């Protein structure tokens, strides 16, 4: 029956949520004021825009860690309300990077796997917008093949000694903590077994150094984080020793499901509409209609994932579908834009469209790499369809 095949890739229908729609009005009013001086080019930074004061302002309104228990600084609100805050901040081009990783994946991982002490130590700070996290997964010789991790943590008398190197650590130079994925026993040949996650203090860990990696646009988001006999306390271990692989897969499911996977180029679409709004071109109308149809359907798929999370289902295959379709969509934006308007992409231009086009085009290659490459995602979808 077709039903069995479809079940693995079926999305839940997103419900109408009155509370979420009321919140949307509130969030839009806040963003209109908070971002009134933010230029289109700055907005097109999408979730790479970094501003701790903006993050604190969201925290003060109770808009970070919204779904978490109140005892850890959360608001115990629904996944749909959190979804509204996430999509409204992204659509407005707000600078969300200072809380992005912590709120989306580090906090949920600590909530799921952490000890009571760890929950109390980290979660209220994340929810207040005071604590930023970075991701310690990729290594120079271990990218998509994450299980080949070589960074090693060895037990000492009073904690752990870590040696190894992590790369592509976005905002590692600003973050307060990292969740480090590493090997705690065995060798890389053991693959998933013998891996663990550690909470690393980025400011007060002897033997830890952070070095910038400049991307092709000239921007400094990435870092290389080097551990040389770095010492971590015993309570740095997150979750269970040896269970690192399962924990990191769970963390990645949080990372792949949101609207950030199709909104990276929405500022270019907005500027394109500004240019075309007085056009009487049928071609332009059809192209904007097509881009809008895709956006509406992607948004429905992504809200369907939120509904599945809220219902306690595992949406890892659906999240991979959203990310794969979403990255293809957001990467297509600059290519489609240049079939509609002849404007030279120029980062330094006083034309908002020309500057946003240049920034979007230059950043687009990263969108099908970060958070799991296109090829890894298609492998996950194939497994969901029973092929592997």
């Amino acid at each position, binding site marked *: 029956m077709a039903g069995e095949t479809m079940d693995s890739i079926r999305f839940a229908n997103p419900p109408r949520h009155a509370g979420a729609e009321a919140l949307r009005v509130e969030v839009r009013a806040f963003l209109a004021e908070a971002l009134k001086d933010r230029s289109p080019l700055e907005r097109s930074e999408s979730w790479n825009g970094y501003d701790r004061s903006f993050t604190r302002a969201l925290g003060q309104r109770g808009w970070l860690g919204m779904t978490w228990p109140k005892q850890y600084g959360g608001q115990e609100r629904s996944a749909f309300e959190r979804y509204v805050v996430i999509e409204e901040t992204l659509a407005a081009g707000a600078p969300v990077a200072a809380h992005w990783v912590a709120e989306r994946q580090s906090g949920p991982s600590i909530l799921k796997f952490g000890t009571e002490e760890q929950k109390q130590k980290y979660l209220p700070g994340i929810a207040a917008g005071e604590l930023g996290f970075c991701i310690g997964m990729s290594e120079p010789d271990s990218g998509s093949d994450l299980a080949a991790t070589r960074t090693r943590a060895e037990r000492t008398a009073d904690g752990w000694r870590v040696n190894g190197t992590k790369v592509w650590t976005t905002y590692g130079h600003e973050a307060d903590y990292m969740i480090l994925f590493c090997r705690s026993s065995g060798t890389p040949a053991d693959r998933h077994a013998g891996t663990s996650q550690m909470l690393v203090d980025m400011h007060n860990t002897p033997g830890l150094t952070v070095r910038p990696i400049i991307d092709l646009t000239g921007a400094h988001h990435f870092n290389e984080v080097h551990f040389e006999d770095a010492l971590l306390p015993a309570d740095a271990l997150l979750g269970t020793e040896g269970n690192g692989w399962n924990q990191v897969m769970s963390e990645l499911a949080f990372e792949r499901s949101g609207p950030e996977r199709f909104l990276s180029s929405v500022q270019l679409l907005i500027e394109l509409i500004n240019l075309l709004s007085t056009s009487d071109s049928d071609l332009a109308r059809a192209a904007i*209609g097509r881009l809008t149809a895709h956006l509406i359907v992607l948004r429905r798929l992504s809200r369907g994932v939120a509904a599945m999370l809220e219902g306690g289902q595992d949406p890892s295959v659906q999240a991979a579908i959203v990310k794969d379709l979403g990255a293809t969509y957001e990467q297509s934006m600059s290519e489609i834009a240049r079939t509609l308007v002849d404007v030279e992409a120029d980062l330094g231009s006083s034309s908002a469209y020309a500057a946003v086009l240049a920034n979007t085009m230059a950043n687009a290659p990263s969108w099908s790499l970060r958070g799991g490459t296109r090829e890894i995602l298609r*492998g996950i979808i194939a497994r969901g369809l029973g092929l592997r």
Partner: protein
Amino acid sequence: MSDWEMLRDAAGRLFADLAEDWRDESAAAAERAWAAIDEMGLPLALVPEDAGGFGLATEDALGLIRLAGQHALPVPLAETMVANRLRAEAGMQLADGPTTFAAGDFAVTSGHSALLWGAAMRSLQIAGALETILRLTILHTSERQQFGKPLSKFQVLQHSIAQLGAEVAAASAAADMATEAIAGSGDAQLPIAAARVRLGEAVGIATAFAHQLHGAIGFTKEHQLHRFTTQAWRWRDEFGGHVYWSQLLGRAALAAGGSGYWAFVTEAA
């Protein structure tokens, strides 16, 4: 099990039985199929109870159209179901056999137009056909062996099937959106426009992958893949094609302007 679930399962079994004989394209076979469908009362599934129907929720009845699409029925059940709904809403007599309708039919005073009903109907049929296309492709690539192993074990083909699956998932969600819109009382035009544009594109991508993955056998009358792909190609251009629906949606989006665009997107569907 609810009455609806029992009806859906019975209809599913009937459609599967009828599909067994898909090679018989005679008028007599179509007549037999219609008689069995009529006996189950399905042509009245979308008709309100007070107009002679049996009180099925509109969303559920629309599920039968998707199911019919999954089996590529040789009779116009979907068209007759919707035509009877439109006849009932116009206070007209219901059809006494298989029928169809066109976009300009019925002067609608309340409820959705025949164009929107037709577009939603085609959306569901396409979603059903694409779901079967995915199933047939997984079946074929799992059974067919080349170079000593099933096609489905080659990574390059797994990635093609994954892309096919992602398109079918998007098409399926688009059809769900069209269902909610046509079953609801609000303005259904924008969500149906978005669904139709997305579904039309999914048909192009999904059928191309499915035919490539089936190889030459999928290009023959002997294999049933063509029943679903050729129908999907027809369905996507009926009741408004890509140009009509994309321009309708694009015109509304451009009217919202850059500053109003995001609000437009969140309110459209």
